[in-house]
């Protein structure tokens, strides 16, 4: 079903090339789409932001930015100008601060990357713990555990964050909210981000474990006298883990989107708070840059996942083995 790619050796190279091409196209189109959202939709956000007396930009600054973006020219010319710069890696000038957008984004990036990676690890741990519990605990407890992912999916990010802050910050004093970068505070911020992400992961794991546990080989292993834990660890875990590789890749976007709320609540300085500030100030070039950056990350991670699954899963690389048998 689905993505069983019959790979010939040269076929794999073609797969890589075509996926790369698609990825580049998607990133390019993501830029065009967000440009349209930012520039063509009603409400002249850029001009408003420029003439906002609080922006602290001088007349020369404004003239420089207007000339840079071609704001006095038709939208199509503006798009071509912007695309021309985008191809060379130039993401423009911030309307709020007059600084290059690339600098702003890359300054904010390390903090968010660290937060997102910590959250990803936590989400994996949570998901595996739930899935293992569902399969090894007695049926009563397992039944309760089975409904945990759908509960996790029903709680908005900001509620999780505020509850964690209220319980562990204000009541138990496990961390102080005034030091958002301390390890414990970072842990709770990452947990906020991890809980919604862990739910779909756990669901994929649980259902593929269900499928694998019903296979004949699992029965054979049981009848050989292996304990349930042994069967689980030696036989079921590996094949069940593969679908989650794809799922993790798809959830990267969730982490990036969730960072806007999480960083705001915990007072961290990162891409999420940069987005929040830029929205407040109508700083559209920064928003455009973050959207495109997220698309790049998403496309890259999914490219890696798509290309590595056929290599990791012996069942999907059929032709290589056939070749060996024939020759």
């Amino acid at each position, binding site marked *: *079903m*689905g*993505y069983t790619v019959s790979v010939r050796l040269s076929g794999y190279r073609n797969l890589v090339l075509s*996926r790369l091409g*698609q990825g580049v*196209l*998607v990133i390019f*189109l*993501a830029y065009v*789409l*967000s440009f349209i*959202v*930012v520039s063509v*939709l*009603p*409400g002249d*956000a850029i001009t408003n932001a420029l003439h906002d007396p609080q922006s602290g930009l001088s007349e020369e600054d404004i003239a420089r930015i207007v000339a840079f973006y071609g704001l006095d020219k038709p939208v199509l010319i503006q798009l071509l100008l912007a695309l021309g710069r985008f191809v060379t890696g130039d993401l423009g000038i911030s309307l709020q601060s007059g600084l290059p957008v690339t600098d702003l984004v890359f300054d904010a990036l390390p903090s968010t990357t660290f937060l997102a990676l910590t959250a990803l690890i936590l989400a994996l741990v949570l998901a595996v713990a739930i899935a293992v519990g569902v399969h090894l605990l007695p049926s009563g407890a397992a*039944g309760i555990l*089975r*409904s945990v992912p*759908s*509960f996790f*999916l*029903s709680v*908005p*990010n*900001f*509620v999780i964050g*505020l*509850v964690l802050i*209220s319980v562990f910050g*204000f009541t138990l004093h496990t961390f102080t909210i005034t030091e958002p970068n301390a390890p414990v505070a970072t842990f709770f911020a990452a947990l906020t981000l991890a809980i919604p992400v862990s739910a779909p992961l756990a*669901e*994929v794991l*649980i*259902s*593929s474990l*269900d499928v694998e546990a019903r296979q004949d080989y699992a029965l054979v292993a049981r009848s050989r006298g292996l304990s349930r834990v042994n069967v689980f660890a030696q036989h079921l875990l590996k094949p069940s883990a593969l*679908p989650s590789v*794809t*799922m993790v890749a*798809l959830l990267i*976007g969730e982490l990036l*989107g*969730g960072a*806007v*709320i999480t960083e*705001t609540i915990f007072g961290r300085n990162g891409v999420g708070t940069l*987005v*929040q500030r830029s*929205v407040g100030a109508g700083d*559209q070039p920064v*928003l455009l840059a*973050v*959207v495109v950056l*997220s*698309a790049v990350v*998403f*496309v890259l991670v*999914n490219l890696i996942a798509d290309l590595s699954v056929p290599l990791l899963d012996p069942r999907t690389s059929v032709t290589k083995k056939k070749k060996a048998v024939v020759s």
Partner: protein
Amino acid sequence: MTGIVQLQTALETKSTPSGNRSSLPVSVLLSFAVIVFAVLFSAFPSLFTSHSPELGDTSAKLVSPGLHHWFGTDYLGRDVFTRVVYGSLSSVSSALAAVIIGLVVGSGIGLLAGFLGGWVDSALGRIVDVLLAIPGFLLAVVIVSSLGFQTINAAIATGVSAIAVFGRLMRAEVIKIRGAAFVESSFLSGGNRLQALIFHVLPNAGRSVLVLAILQFGTSIMVIASLAFLGYGDPPPSSDWGLLVASGKEYPTAPWLIYAPAAVIVATVLSVNRISRWLKKVR
């Protein structure tokens, strides 16, 4: 629509929960009750509370929850339960609007792509790929910041970010049904493509699209609450659920200001998701 999209559809069909057989319909009944209350709150708020959502009793500021004030009062002495009830209309109806936008546009794209195939399919597929590649919440934030901070714009933004999932599902359903034997036999007995679309494809795809629409309704409530929480919806004194939580967080000594509206959001979304799962199973 290859690549990412195909993988996702493959995954989704794989990951339909096959367990969970022992669940009680009681939880489904309870979920319907919650939804009925949310709808009644939206339609007839004054039936459920005698307080005013905007005028507070200044002698009763930050009163903790009790018989008189179920959810306590806020810093102006306004009854929080009343604020939640009056905030239902915009919270629930904007989520509904978002689902309708996503459903109509997304299904349209999916139908065209799946039915016409060829270059139309690949062109629309790229658009869906792009929408999937941009994190949904980020896309909604950017759209709402372009359109202006109003709840109706938050609904539009949420709807646009839901287009991709509907498009993907509809396309997969159309392709699945188009190849089914009964559709082929309708071609053989002289039916044309439009007839097949109206009489066979749409009714069959409708069920799973409905399940997704309900699930997406829950997601939209959360996304719109998050946008309101960040201050991107209607400003106070309107009382969108997310906005209530946001203003409540300024008063750490009065945790009910957060917990009460948050519990309402969670209960509603939980119920919606429960109903969606139940519908998926009883098919």
